[in-house]
């Protein structure tokens, strides 16, 4: 709800007069509280600036700590100082104006050019260009030797960071600069693109300093009863103290040099008051050497006001807990612990149609009950034993009853890092015992979650608009396809794939009892077609999940899969069919039968497949990795084969028969070839295992159907670890000429450069162990680096493109209606539905 609409926000600088008008108090005492802990009048905590102590009243508006929003004060500086953030701009103005008549040194011809350029800028309302134009003008003007108006010869201006200016080698003080800037006529400023109404240059030389209200810089009372002031207050105290001393010294007629010193000190404090990270200025620090957080630091960066408090905010109506999996929930549901459901509330907007229901909630002493009632006038009352009847009696349409979370309420569920929009989805509540959030096993993928202690957040949308949006646009069942590539983001994983394999592999038969039991778990009370042997084939059981008119052909990892009229005729449902390697089946079912069907389907699929695994039992044991004599021989053969080839390359390099690859030197050629050759050892071992192992080996079975692990795990367990890599090459550093001190210098043996020939099952030799650790360390280090680099790229991308949206003519527009694409993607098709065969 928007009461008032802000159309635009204009930025200007404050003139001394404006500051005085804004100010409610001129501050004169460089102190905060007196001995009694009471704010000093005219001090920095003056009660006219607002109050933060609960007992006191604001002397300007009469409000208390909570109701008074604070008022500005001001300090009159005895000597003007330069606003450090504008120093560069002041310098540019000095360069482009005459040192005598102070007019902008634009010659007639140049002035006409600039006028034209400005006109165009104003036409396009592109104020950013003004800045560039101004920079260009200054570049031209600063080279001028003579003022075109009064003919005065110009001397060199110099600017030294942070706030020192020189004319012809001599210092010019802020008061002189102010006189100079004051003299620049308004028309001249307009002619170079500066708006004198927004900023008169002399305003940038501060003679009056605005003091923010007390609320902006509250003091904290420590446990010991001591008061600790805000960094800004500290800085302001120091400014006032120096200001006072300067004023006394001037009155006492102190020598100029002392006054100048103090003046410079005042300038330093004002500079750090605005920005404590100004280049060329020593950082102002606490006694604990912690740098002070002054105005610029408050706004800046990730923890600054803009990004930490305005772009993102803390919220109410949210909960966080550990997640665990539950195979009996649908992907659309989330299990919410009773403890959380009884604390979180959802507003019930009372109308004449639901007033009775609302009353029931208020009267209910136990869950589900109403916790608060908010009357039309906005007064919130807690529902208690005693006031229950009164609240019911006075309840009328327009009131809001806040009731506890119940089954089927819509909530948002989120896991950080929130990398894409599927990281926040809307689920239906299912209140459960226990203390963790429960989600369907398959719902973890879009969140990139697992159940090893991950925590997730839950938010309860409070308005009907928010709830409607969540229901229609954010439910997992509607978000089956990813906007990134149009493929399903919910699919079977791990145990489910294993279970489906057992069911569909063809020679699995269940007795009538078993089949009936399995199907009854998913709410199907019919039996499938009986096989010839009087039993029920797994394929016919799984077929019960498909609609009767469903036809499908596709390929799994091994061969074709055919479903005809809702019956699985041929093929195994493996991870290429229904899992992470390409869930074409799920995609097809979703496209043809819709969200509600797919929600049920995934639930049934999970239940059925898990039941099948329970039934058969599945475990990976030591036996699966046992190294047989045959394997040892094969390993030795592979090592010998690879090492022979490697040695041949080395020999070729030594007797110069090895030719360099294009673009490489011979030495580089040798190292690349060696690395490639030695890495091949694992592939050869993989081929061997693929040939000799069969599905009686559970580890191999799981890898081959894509349920868990890969053939690489088996290779590294029972064959060899293979060539290790550090920074994409063979390990080479450590000691001079060798990787570990246990090798000879310049050893040509591949094993001396990270070719690990032992396996996990038999254990690594000490040198192998260290070489393996080098590779592992390298990949761990790179991983942490990638997240930082990619995170920043991501932020830049989002910031650049977040304003783009689809306009009503399917064109892509930016925030200023600028045309990015005439038709989105060239065809106006949503990437979510690229795999859908549309009717068009």
């Amino acid at each position: 709800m928007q009461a008032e609409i802000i159309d635009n926000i204009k930025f200007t600088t404050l003139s001394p007069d404006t500051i005085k008008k804004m100010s409610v108090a001129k501050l004169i005492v460089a102190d905060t509280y007196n001995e009694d802990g009471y704010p000093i009048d005219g001090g920095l905590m003056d009660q006219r600036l607002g109050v933060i102590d609960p007992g006191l009243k604001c002397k300007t508006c009469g409000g208390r700590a909570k109701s008074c929003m604070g008022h500005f004060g001001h300090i009159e500086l005895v000597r003007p100082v330069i606003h450090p953030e504008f120093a560069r701009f002041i310098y540019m103005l000095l360069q482009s104006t005459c040192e005598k008549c102070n007019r902008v040194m634009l010659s007639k011809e140049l002035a006409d050019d600039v006028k034209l350029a400005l006109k165009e800028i104003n036409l396009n309302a592109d104020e950013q260009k003004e800045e560039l134009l101004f920079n260009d003008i200054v570049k031209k003007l600063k080279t001028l030797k003579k003022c075109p108006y009064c003919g005065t010869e110009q001397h060199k201006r110099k600017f030294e960071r942070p706030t020192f200016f020189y004319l012809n080698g001599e210092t010019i003080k802020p008061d002189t600069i102010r006189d100079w800037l004051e003299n620049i006529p308004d028309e001249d400023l307009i002619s170079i693109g500066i708006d004198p109404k927004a900023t008169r240059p002399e305003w940038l030389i501060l003679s009056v300093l605005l003091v923010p209200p007390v609320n902006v810089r509250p003091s904290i009372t420590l446990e010991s009863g001591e008061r600790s002031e805000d960094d800004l207050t500290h800085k302001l105290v120091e400014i006032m103290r120096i200001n006072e001393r300067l004023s006394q010294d001037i009155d006492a007629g102190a020598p100029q040099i002392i006054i100048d010193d103090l003046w410079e000190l005042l300038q330093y404090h004002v500079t750090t008051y605005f920005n404590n990270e100004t280049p060329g200025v020593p950082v102002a620090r606490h006694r604990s050497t912690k740098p002070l957080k002054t105005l610029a630091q408050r706004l800046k960066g990730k923890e600054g006001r803009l990004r930490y408090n305005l772009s993102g905010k803390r919220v109410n109506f949210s909960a966080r807990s550990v997640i665990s999996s539950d195979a009996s929930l649908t992907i659309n549901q989330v299990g919410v612990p009773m403890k959380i459901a009884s604390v979180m509330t959802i507003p019930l907007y009372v109308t004449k149609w639901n007033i009775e229901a609302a009353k029931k909630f208020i009267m209910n002493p136990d869950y589900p009950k109403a916790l608060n009632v908010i009357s039309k006038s906005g007064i919130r009352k807690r529902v208690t034993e005693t006031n229950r009847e009164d609240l019911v009696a006075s309840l009328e349409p327009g009131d809001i009853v806040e009731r506890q979370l119940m089954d089927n309420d819509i909530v948002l569920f989120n896991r950080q890092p929130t990398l894409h929009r599927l990281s926040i989805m809307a689920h239906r509540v299912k209140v459960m015992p226990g203390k963790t959030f429960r989600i369907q096993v398959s719902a973890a993928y879009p969140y990139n979650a697992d159940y090893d202690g991950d925590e997730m957040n839950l938010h309860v949308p409070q308005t009907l608009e928010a709830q409607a949006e969540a229901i229609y646009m954010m439910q997992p069942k509607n978000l089956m396809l990813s906007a990134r590539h149009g493929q399903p983001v919910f699919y079977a994983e791990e145990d489910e794939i294993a279970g489906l394999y057992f069911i569909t592999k063809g020679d699995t038969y269940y007795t009538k009892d078993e089949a009936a039991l399995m199907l009854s778990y998913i709410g199907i009370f019919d039996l499938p077609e009986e096989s010839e042997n009087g039993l029920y084939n797994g394929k016919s059981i799984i077929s019960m999940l498909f609609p009767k008119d469903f036809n499908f052909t596709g390929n799994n990892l091994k061969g074709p899969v055919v479903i005809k009229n809702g019956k699985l005729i041929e093929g195994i449902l493996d991870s290429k069919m229904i899992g992470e390697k390409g869930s074409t089946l799920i995609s097809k079912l979703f496209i043809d039968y819709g969200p509600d069907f797919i929600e049920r389907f995934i639930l049934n699929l999970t239940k059925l497949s898990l039941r099948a695994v329970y039934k058969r039992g599945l475990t990976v044991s030591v036996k699966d990795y046992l190294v047989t004599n045959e394997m040892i021989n094969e390993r030795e053969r592979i090592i010998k084969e690879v090492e022979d080839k490697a040695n041949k390359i080395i020999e070729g390099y030594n007797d110069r028969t090895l030719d360099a690859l294009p673009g490489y030197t011979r030495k580089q050629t040798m190292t690349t070839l060696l690395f490639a050759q030695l890495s091949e050892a694992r592939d050869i071992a993989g081929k061997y295992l693929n040939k000799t192992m069969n599905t009686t080996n559970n580890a191999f079975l799981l890898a081959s159907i894509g349920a868990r692990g890969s053939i690489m795990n088996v290779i590294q367990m029972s064959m060899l670890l293979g060539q290790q890599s550090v920074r994409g090459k063979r390990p080479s550093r450590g000691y001079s000429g060798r990787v570990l001190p246990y090798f000879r210098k310049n050893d040509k043996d591949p094993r001396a450069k990270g070719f690990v020939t032992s396996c996990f099952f038999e254990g690594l030799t000490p040198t192998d162990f260290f070489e393996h650790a080098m590779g592992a360390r390298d990949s761990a280090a790179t991983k942490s680096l990638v997240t930082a680099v990619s995170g920043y790229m991501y932020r830049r991308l989002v910031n650049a493109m977040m304003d783009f949206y689809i306009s009503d003519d399917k064109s892509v527009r930016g925030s200023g209606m600028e045309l990015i694409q005439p038709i989105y993607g060239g065809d106006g098709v949503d990437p979510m539905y690229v795999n859908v065969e549309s009717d068009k």
Partner: protein
Amino acid sequence: MAAKKENEISIKNVDVQYGEPVGVVAAQSMGEPSTQMVLRTFHSAGIATTISSGLPRVIELVDARKKQASPTMIVPLDPKIKKNYDAVKKLAKKFQEVRIKDVILKHIENLKESKLELVLSKSKMEDNMLTEDQIIEKLTKKFSGISIEKKSNHLIISQKKAKDIHSTRIAFVHIMDFQLSGIKGINKAVIMQNDDESFYIFTSGSNISEAMQLEGVLSESIYSTDPFDVLKSYGVEAARNAIAYELKNTMQHEGVKVDFRHMGLIADSMTLTGTIIGVGRHGLAGTKASVFARAAYEETVKHFVNASIFGESDPLKGVSENVLIGKQIHVGTGLVKLAIKKEDLKKIKAEE
């Protein structure tokens, strides 16, 4: 049974919806999988150079870096010569940049007498189809202040006017670096074969404008991985495609599936102004109309200060600034407004 309504086809409309925040979706589609990409540039044996890939390549493209780590060109050839290996080989030689230092065996610098002695290599010269006389001619044409003496396969170069050691040395370095033939910036040209047995030239380094002038090159269809080079020779539309396809290739190489529309949108927004701008602080994100959006992104104080000098006003049209001030954003469901007919409103009021 399972399906509620059999034969129901749920997705009929595949069109992108009004208000869809396609920019954010595109950014997310690139950003989310980028955490899974490798940081290292790949060395693929067989091809002329290291080809940068993975995350660094994506960042390089999206940032619109003027100096690319490893630009390459694929140069298709005229049908007349593309099956003739010798002709192609001859052409490839014309690509490869040859400098003085590439045709000598060794060189002796005598700074005292400001003399540079070059020992030319016959085989290297032949390799690059150069003769001594050609080299001398080219050198004298380029460097006016030198005299060249020829002694068998030695070239003795001396400065006509004696200069101090420092400038002599610099002059010698320039001479050693002098380009005799080939195209500037191309340090390798390799002949590659298509499936149909025709040849094409693959180069490391990119310079379309000069490559298209060589005879036998299909000048209108050179592919370059350097968008700026494409921009210079083929214009901004081609540059847009270059960015989009390079992004696509990089993502594909990493095995990450991203729809082309997302990459197309990124490329389109980068080439919006008629030239290539990056997405960062000096590009798209840093030149937004809104002061708040820029301030919230990077260099907060600078943007506020400049805005006040020029009296800028924030039109509050974009997403970032409306989030900041707490208004509804102008994309997605925030874009639509609810309207009700006056008579309907009266009806409702009357009912109450």
